[in-house]
């Protein structure tokens, strides 16, 4: 009798999945419930209204939007930068330098060994004085932040891309494309990347989630609570119900991102296949 048909195995599996789901969902539900209790004895959306409307002064827009926009922008830049660096590198290591694979594997997990605060202090020491005084400008600091995020998400992006590459026959596909006249950029962009869609989506999603909520680097490089992580921390220090509302909003944003990225991914494949009619 297969495990699929064994009722004991089936119910054990159901129990494990249920416990895991509850472990994830119950805190979210209690958080959501708490976020609705800003008014005594009444369920209301006041905490959400407060998050969306509280302005630092009469002129500026609510800080929720500006900080979220800022962090989302940094996250998008991080996705672009990390994919730009990691996809070709991982491809090249797999295609041409398989001997370096163990080195790359080791290198990719090094960010786990470096705490964010060490990275932040390292950046500040290195890039606050000439000749690399990047922190003197917002653009320079943002570049540092994106660089730091790229390092931080490297283990996830590398693993995801590497797994995706191993699932396809990159050697033959690359050689087929090359024999048809494709340069390296075309090979990566038109042959490898479309076949890494799932890997790129998952890497992008992880990158977005990490970058939007990141606190340490953002707080040290932009101490004015410009980033979403810093803003949530500041709200948490001063308010009671708004942080719960922000947590729920963050989750919804992440899930919206998942759906959007999947839609975009599917759309791009359909467009590609519609080129030659």
């Amino acid at each position: 009798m297969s495990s699929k048909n064994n009722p004991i195995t089936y119910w054990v599996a159901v129990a494990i999945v249920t416990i895991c789901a509850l472990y994830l969902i119950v805190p979210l539900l209690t958080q959501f419930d708490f976020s609705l209790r800003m008014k005594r004895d009444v369920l209301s959306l006041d905490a959400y209204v407060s998050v969306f409307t509280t302005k630092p002064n009469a002129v500026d827009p609510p800080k929720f939007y500006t900080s979220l926009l800022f962090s989302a922008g940094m996250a998008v830049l991080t996705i672009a930068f990390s994919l730009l660096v990691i996809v070709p590198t991982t491809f090249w290591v797999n295609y041409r330098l398989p001997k370096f694979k163990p080195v790359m594997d080791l290198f990719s997990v090094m960010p786990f060994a470096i705490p964010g605060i060490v990275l932040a202090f390292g950046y500040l020491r290195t890039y606050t004085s000439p000749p690399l005084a990047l922190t003197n400008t917002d653009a320079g600091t943002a570049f540092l932040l994106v660089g730091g995020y790229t390092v931080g998400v490297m283990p996830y992006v590398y693993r995801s891309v590497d797994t995706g590459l191993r699932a396809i026959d990159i050697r033959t596909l690359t050689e087929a494309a090359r024999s048809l006249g494709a340069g390296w950029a075309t090979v990566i962009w038109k042959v490898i990347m479309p076949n890494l869609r799932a890997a790129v989506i998952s890497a992008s999603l992880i990158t977005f989630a990490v970058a939007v909520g990141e606190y340490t680097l953002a707080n040290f490089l932009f101490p004015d609570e410009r980033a979403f992580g810093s803003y949530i921390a500041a709200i948490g220090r001063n308010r009671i119900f708004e942080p719960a509302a922000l947590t729920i909003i963050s989750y919804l944003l992440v899930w919206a991102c998942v759906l959007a990225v999947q839609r975009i991914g599917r759309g791009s494949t359909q467009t590609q296949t519609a080129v030659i009619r």
Partner: protein
Amino acid sequence: MDFLILNDLRKLYGSAVAVEQFDLRMSRGEFVSFLGPSGSGKTTTMRMVAGFENPDRGTIVLDGMDITNLQPNKRKVGMVFQSYALFPHLTVRDNIGFGLMLSKMPKAEIGKRVDEMLGLIQMTELGQRFPSQLSGGQQQRVALARAIAPRPQVLLLDEPLSALDAKIRVGLRAEIRAIQQALGITTIYVTHDQEEAMSLSDRVVVMSHGRVEQVGTPYAIYNTPATTFVAGFVGTLNVLQGTLTQTGGDTLRIGSTNVRLATKMEGRKADSLIKFQLRPEAITPHPVTDLPGNPALNYLNARVEGVTFLGAVVRMRVNVNDSPLSVDTFNNPRMPPPQKGDTVQLAFDPGACMSVAAV
């Protein structure tokens, strides 16, 4: 005039020699097969032509231009792979049009050329399918169409039929040859299957241990092998041995029977042991009741050890003087094949005997 010249190619992997002293001159529109066992250097040589491997020595000249150090995407060399290598995210049409798109051909012309290619491979109705929705044979036909769509100067086929089942392989083999002849495209075909090489090619390059053993037409390769390796690798060979009856003579004694060879064994002394080889189809079995009828032929008595009926051909395993031989004969509905244990007479022409010393 030579269209593709491979001149003194050499490729090493560390200290291991993959290809050594490879010379070949191909004329435009010629179909040449590289035939050899695994590790003979045939695929490495093809990959050097494609530009995926750089030769350590030698040059590759295509239509008068030295392409030895040219990038693969600049060579105008189409390639078909054993594993098809179709782009899984693209439809059949997009796969075929991929090379055309890269050549910046106008979209309308791409569409026309893709239609033409789909017609050529008889898959007009399947243009919108993805590779995963096709059979192996269909995928390889698309791969072939994709490779020839940009009108490459040379087409390379790297064991394209190996992953297909026998029936499809034979059908597709004929299609490949027909398309190649229709387009007049210069083609190199890598295979370890001698039947494929012989049936497809204008010429065959037999390779072993990175070296060319022989270059010739299938007929020449089969009938006049230049080396022992070629003789053994192409087709089946029987080896017989006998003692020379007189110094420098042309007659051997096998058991109690004399066998004449086509050439005299100059320089060989009487009673020296001589080996010679015979193709299975060069031997005709007769019942022992038939008297030796033709004095120009050799006759040997043999015991039948096994009979395999293959339809058009009957393959027998026989024993002559403790030497096992393979004999192929056409099926004759009016004369059933002999049974295991029967004794037969084997007739063969002295001209069919290939001396081991000679090869």
